[in-house]
């Protein structure tokens, strides 16, 4: 087997959480010693190997140990057990402009950063123009970086890291910043580095970027490596686990706010259920069948009542607010107990967390019998589609008739 670019064996890293941190002399004298702390394992027994020229994505929730692992590989944190071996020069982009000196100009920071990565000044001079061109900062390169916008900061940081010829490049969540066109150029540049046989480790919440860039993925959870293997498989497992976790959470939220009968005049909602393709669920995919079932109860036959449903996104946007049809219900008498269904054959909602506001009102007076505000949470995923927004609008594009390319040339 050829030598690995990165080889991590049984790596463990422990952190101290201070309850009472004695950092001043007085505290130390009063409390004797360095204070109370608890230890916890941020990374527990992780082993992996990255071959030269391949790209590894590390995924996982916040606090799962991804960044700690990356810092151990970078040599910033020293593991408590296990070993890390990196072959070749390493560049780590752990934070926007890490290692920048705010008082320094962009130009000076390029040289300082290069030196921190262990590069000769003469080499940095030879790639200086490329770095500046890539970052599009030529007009600002002699200004102190403290005057830069966060976008400029990150452009310079990224340009430096990718031009300083690293054998191993570690990237932590930086692509999220910057405008679309710069992000695209970053991705192109990473592809180029991959093609040159450089090794890349990429930590991200953005599963899309991991899927696009990485050959293999490592899924971290509470300090443990849960899965390691081809990106498609690991990301799939991760998404399934996240969804299962969220479904449980949403169900718990639903259960935590029990729907109680007995609104005004004894008219109330007894149960709410969301039904998807395969039965009751809180997770939907755009285009899935969607059905809301509202079970109500009343002391006697229910006359002149109207049902209201609003679909409210997490940020307060009301995607839909719909009452039952007034004219059809005005004189209709409903049984004392029953279930009202609202169905949507193909859910047009796009990615987001939604809740329902459900009420029953009296026709005529317009007074609420009962009104349940933002209950029944459900998550809509939009996968394998490029539309973003609140909902699909039945949109269609039409393009001009195609022409043969030689005619337009």
């Amino acid at each position: 087997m050829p030598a690995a670019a990165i080889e991590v064996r049984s790596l463990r890293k422990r952190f101290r959480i201070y309850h009472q941190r004695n950092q001043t002399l007085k505290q130390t004298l009063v409390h004797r010693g360095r204070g109370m702390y608890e230890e916890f394992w941020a990374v527990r027994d992780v082993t992996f190997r990255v071959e030269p020229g391949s790209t590894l994505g590390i995924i996982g929730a916040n606090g799962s140990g991804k960044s700690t692992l990356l810092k151990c590989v970078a040599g910033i944190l020293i593991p408590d057990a296990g070993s890390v071996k990196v072959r070749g020069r390493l560049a780590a982009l752990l934070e926007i402009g890490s290692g920048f000196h705010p008082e320094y100009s962009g130009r000076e920071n390029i040289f300082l950063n290069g030196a921190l990565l262990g590069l000769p000044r003469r080499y940095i001079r030879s790639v200086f123009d490329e770095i500046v061109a890539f970052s599009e900062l030529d007009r600002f390169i002699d200004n102190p970086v403290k005057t830069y916008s966060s976008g400029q900061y990150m452009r310079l940081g990224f340009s430096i890291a990718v031009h300083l010829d690293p054998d191993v490049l570690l990237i932590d969540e930086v692509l999220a910043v910057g405008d679309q066109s710069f992000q695209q150029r970053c991705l192109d540049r990473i592809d180029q580095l991959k093609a040159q046989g450089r090794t890349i480790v990429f930590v991200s919440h953005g599963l899309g970027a991991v899927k696009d860039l990485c050959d293999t993925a490592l899924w971290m959870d509470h300090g443990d490596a849960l899965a390691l293997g081809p990106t498609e498989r690991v990301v799939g497992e991760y998404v399934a686990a996240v969804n299962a976790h969220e479904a449980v959470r949403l169900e718990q939220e639903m259960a935590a706010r029990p729907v109680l009968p007995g609104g005004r005049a004894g008219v109330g909602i007894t149960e709410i259920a969301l039904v998807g393709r395969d039965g009751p669920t809180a997770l939907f995919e755009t285009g899935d069948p969607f059905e809301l079932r509202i079970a109500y109860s009343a002391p006697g036959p229910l006359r002149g009542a109207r049902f209201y449903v609003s679909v409210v996104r997490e940020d307060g946007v009301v995607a839909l607010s719909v009452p039952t049809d007034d004219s059809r219900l005005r004189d209709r008498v409903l049984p004392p107990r029953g279930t009202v269904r609202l169905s949507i054959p193909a859910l047009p909602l796009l990615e987001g967390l939604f809740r329902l506001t459900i009420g029953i009102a009296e026709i005529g007076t317009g007074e609420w019998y009962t009104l349940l505000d933002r209950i029944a949470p459900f998550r809509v995923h939009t996968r394998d589609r490029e539309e973003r927004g609140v909902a699909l609008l039945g949109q269609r594009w039409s393009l001009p008739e195609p022409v043969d390319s030689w005619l337009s040339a």
Partner: protein
Amino acid sequence: MATKEFLAVPSAAGPARVPPSGAFARNRELLAELVRRDVRARYRGSALGVLWTLLNPILFMTVYTVVFSVLLGATYPGGVPAAAYILTGLLVWNFFSQAVSFATSSVLSNSGLVRKVAFPWVLLTVSAVTAALVNYLISLVLLVPIFIIFKLPLSLALVMLPVLVVIPYVLALGVGLLLAAGNVYFRDLEHLVQVGLLVWLYLTPIVYPPNLVAAHDHGLGGHIFSFFFRFNPMTWVVRAMEDVITRGLWPLHWHGLVYAGVAAVTLLGCGVVVFHRARRRFAEEV
């Protein structure tokens, strides 16, 4: 469920364009860059810039000369003018105390770098001490007018100067490494160091002549002071410096100078060991 097997991914190795260089060469380049940064950071944002490095010792020399020579009537070894004696000592002391106080905060004040970039962090402390050395070498220009005004003798003993620069450098680096590492864990150290340096200044014959200590070496207080005075390696560095610069003599107290050198190297050894051990948790603690 933890996957323990190694994974193997096909590789396409490509050539690196940067010529390989040894760790020493890389660290030297980085040190040069850090020193450049530290020196410039000091002068940036101050109107008089480098002038302060020169003005500061002159102002202090004036104050101390008035207090110790004019008011208290101190006389200095070999009948050397008070101003020449005090300035010479002050230049050495300024270097040493600057180096120690810059070094103390060197790791903590670069927490951004330490948390995010892997490189030999010890270079931050080396750089702080070296930046103080650069200031010192600039400030030595002040000796030229002193030599001219007071008609000090130029002698072959001046070849001792490099040794007299290296010893306090090594000493400051040793003390600085200990304090830099300690400061990460106990933030009060920075303030204590300022007080400590003031005490240390008065334990060194800079503003007063060394024979003053011998003259008062009686009683418990006198003995204690005298002990620390002799124990202090800087005493011997400053005395040798005074001999060489103001009197044109070879250092009169060879044994003291050798002791200072041994003390400096010993402290450097301790500093390196302690720093190396403390370094393991720097990125978490800064």
